């Protein structure tokens, strides 16, 4: 099992859209947005099966999500996490004084984390903020 370095972007997906309207406290939200979409070639480099949990780490944080094969590829070297608390645990908050964080284009490393759980959305944010 290797570590791979990829360029992370976050953004909308229709499943994420349905899930936020369905309720962010529900597991369906985690299923829709607690994931990372990797190119098949990056899966090979990572040496992991599809649908395994991975830890994604950037200079700004670290989060566990489930790695799935990209639905909108190929995009080797590029990874996608739907917008939401999982992506925002690791994206670059630098706004370059424009007010806008760098939600897209964040260098991250991905390691397999088979036995680490993917937290629910609200649970994740509360944990990272130290709020019960």
């Amino acid at each position, binding site marked *: 099992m290797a570590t791979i370095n990829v*360029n992370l*972007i976050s*953004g*909308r*997906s*229709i499943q994420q*859209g*349905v899930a*936020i*309207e*369905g*309720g*962010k*406290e529900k597991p369906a939200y985690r299923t829709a947005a607690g994931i990372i979409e990797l190119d098949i070639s990056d899966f090979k480099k990572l040496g992991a099966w599809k649908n395994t949990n991975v830890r994604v780490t950037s200079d*700004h*944080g670290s989060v566990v999500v489930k790695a799935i094969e*990209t*639905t*909108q*590829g*190929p*995009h080797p070297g*590029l990874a*996608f996490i739907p*917008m*939401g*608390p999982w992506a*925002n*645990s690791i*994206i*670059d*908050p630098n*706004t*370059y*004084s*424009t*007010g*806008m*964080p*760098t*939600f*897209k*284009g964040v260098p991250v490393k991905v390691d397999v984390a088979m036995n680490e759980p993917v937290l629910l*959305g*609200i649970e*994740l*944010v*509360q944990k*990272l*903020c*130290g*709020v*019960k």
Partner: protein
Amino acid sequence: MTKTITDVICPFCGTLCDDLEVVVSDDGKQLLEVYNACVIGTEKFLHSQSKDRVTRPRLHQPDGTWKEISYDEAAEYTAQMLAKAKKPLMYGWSSTNCEAQSVGNEIAEITRACCDNTAAVCHGTTLIAVQDIGLPSCTLGEIKNRADRIIFWGCNPAHAHPRHMSRYSIFPRGFFTGKGQMSRKMIVVDPRVTDTAKMADVHLQVEQGKDYELLNALRVAFRSEWLPDFVAGIPKEKIREAADMMKSGRFGIIFFGMGVTQSLGKNHNIDEAIAVTKDLNEYTKFSIMPMRGHYNVTGSGEVFAWQFGFPYSVDLTRGFARYNPGDTSSIDLLVRGEVDAMFTIGSDPGAHFPISAVRQFAHLPSVCIDPHLTPTSGVSKLHVPVAFNGVETGGNCYRMDNVPIDCRKVVEPPEGMLTDEQFLIKVRDRVRQLKGAA
């Protein structure tokens, strides 16, 4: 017996579809079916009916439990928090109506708050670009009736604005576009082969973060000047081909989204895209339009602008309005530790701000007004659930092309629940007393 309500407006995205049909029970208390909406819009209407919905304000207790309180107690708590704060941030406003936004602006004016909407993490950089170079644009009906060149740059309507292509941009047969899709050429610029890109005549798979360079190269190509062999991973021949395709249309439009507003370059990406549009008007007719996200983020910008003079990131702390993203913008205010209270309405910064910004407000006095349970409500001291705007109450909203559409109430909210506007009026009247305002 059931009733069918027609011409219903969908309170999900900036496409603001207004052709929905909703079937409700005879007593108007239950929403049964939704027609014409996309899968997301349908879910939004149906979720309002969920049985496990929170219907009363709740105070977060130290042990993590919640204590139910009355709306009056919630209004008192909110008013006290805002009145005491030196620099409160009133954020959100994009999933509520313009009437509520107006009352919110009064509260912000009385308490001298910073007010901001979700453009902060969406199209704020677009607004900066528009302030630098302008915006040649049009209404969506113009696209439907005239456009034969459609460019989607850094946006993925197939996922984010599901009915956009069928209602306005790709498929409809308009006055001068009788052949619908056949009369249009579609270009998609995206680092991924998105479901939108898969439909395109031309897909430019731009190297992520190099949109500014690629847009600049298009402008150079329009003028037939020298180009390096590759720009942003795209061979120059393909760039010149795309440039010619744009020039050769009769009426073109660039739709753009988070792909450019949130990537390196930020406002400059939009700035250059607008320059591209301006250039193209020397050869043909071209427009450009941001794919606004929340269904009424545009309205929030409009109301801010006519009341305070600026479309977002407005700082009223000195008693008059000031604006300068980087200083007065939510993310910077939070990450820099500039504010001492957080008021959220009609959005979910807990889920959509960088975690470092969320951490900041999680430890401040905070109030979250939202019909849903969200990461924001989860880390706020007070959660005030309200009626769903656009479902359980009406009110004016602005579509992504700034066209105002008055939302419809289709069903009664649960017994005793207030709307955003009703709750805000309680808060406003109380802060007036606390601040001795006229």
